């Protein structure tokens, strides 16, 4: 007698294959089906932690802001183009300043980076490395400030009255704008760790920036839990430490 395959047994369990006739006459396949049913029957849906009663409103509050940004992003919005151009100019200007500063310390740069395997390596690589370092320096400061905002938020104590988070909110809003720019740049430069952390940071900054300035105890706890669940403060410290190591010149004093 030809027995049912494992696949047919599984499909039978899910009622996507009818093998009733065979099962009736084959004890071996019946036992196999019972074994599969024992395992699959023991797997129940995980308990889903129910969000609060005002979850729907919270989703909309955060989303509506993103939808407004979405509309602003549509082609033809001159303001956004100018803002993006200004931001890029600022980064380029800062980059230029740092490059000139680096140019005065050639020995340090050579010492800071391992010697290229190929002595004929083009000079462009060195410039690229310097640009990458500039990005990391700027992003390192961004991580510092983000960490401060998140730590301050998680240190707030939810009380019976609403908590004022205006300060954190304003700073988060400022950070949010630069976060997007850095994320795109880091991603273009292949700085995957930095880009991923910026990607994770963005929705959290957004939530803080667009929450009401007075938040209820529940809302505050939810924001704190979000920061803690994602382990963002820890990740910021780890990545920032890596950034510092990569950007530190050999004779710079340790801070």
């Amino acid at each position, binding site marked *: 007698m030809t027995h049912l395959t494992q696949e047919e047994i599984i499909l039978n369990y899910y009622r996507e294959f009818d093998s009733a006739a065979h099962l009736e006459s084959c004890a071996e396949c019946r036992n196999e089906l019972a074994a599969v049913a024992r*395992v699959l029957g023991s*797997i129940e849906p995980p308990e889903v932690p129910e969000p609060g009663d005002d*979850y729907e409103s919270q*989703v*909309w509050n955060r989303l509506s802001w993103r939808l407004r940004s979405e509309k602003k992003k549509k082609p033809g919005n001159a303001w956004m183009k100018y803002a993006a151009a200004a931001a890029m100019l600022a980064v380029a200007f800062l980059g230029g300043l740092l490059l000139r500063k680096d140019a005065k310390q050639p020995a340090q740069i050579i010492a800071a980076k391992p010697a290229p395997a190929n002595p004929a390596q083009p000079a462009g690589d060195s410039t690229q490395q310097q640009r990458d370092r500039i990005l990391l320096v700027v992003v390192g400061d961004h991580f510092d400030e983000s960490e401060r905002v998140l730590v301050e938020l998680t240190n707030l104590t939810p009380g019976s009255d609403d908590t004022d988070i205006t300060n954190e909110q304003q700073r988060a809003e400022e950070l949010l704008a630069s976060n997007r720019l850095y994320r795109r740049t880091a991603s273009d430069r292949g700085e995957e*760790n930095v880009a991923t952390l910026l990607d994770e940071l963005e929705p959290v900054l957004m939530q803080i920036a667009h929450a009401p300035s007075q938040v209820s105890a529940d809302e505050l706890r939810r924001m704190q839990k979000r920061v803690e669940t*994602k382990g963002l403060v820890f990740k910021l410290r780890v990545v920032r430490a890596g950034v510092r190591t990569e950007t530190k010149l050999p004779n710079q004093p340790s801070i």
Partner: protein
Amino acid sequence: MEATDIELVERVRGGDDDAFRVLVERHSRPIYRSAYRITNNAADADDVVQETFLRSYRALASFDSRATFTTWLHRIAINCALDLIDSRKRRDGRIDDGEDLSLIASHDASPDRVVLGSEMQRAIAAAMAGLTGNERTAFVLRHFEGMPLEEIGQILGTRLNATKNTVFRAVKKLRQQLQPFTGSLV
């Protein structure tokens, strides 16, 4: 009388953002639950909800009113959840698909499971965490949501046979992991 989803979609297409708000409020909780079952993490499920509605808003023009809005939204949500899992995989730089979800699942799984205090529950969580993103999603949709394999294939963008194989692989891995508890042979 409450407006139907399709009526609301038409209003959104006409520029009525309040209608989209009604859709968001109507569907955010079920989408959150589905996303949680795939990501096993409340914060990630929340991100999936946000991303789902953002993507659906962008894609609303291409929504075919003959289809069910709930199913369409559900598909977007599952793709968002899979994208999130993929981005985790890239971030962690893991080659072995089987390992990446253990990290994702571990965020929320441990406290809950500890409270439940059941060895079996922990074993199930660990076994589920050992599945790849596609295996886990296919299994969740088939086993927990009772979705037919053909529909799962449409969501995952795979042919029926490939979908079946994904579910088979998931079941096989789960049996192997849970064998000490159920006594069944693989």
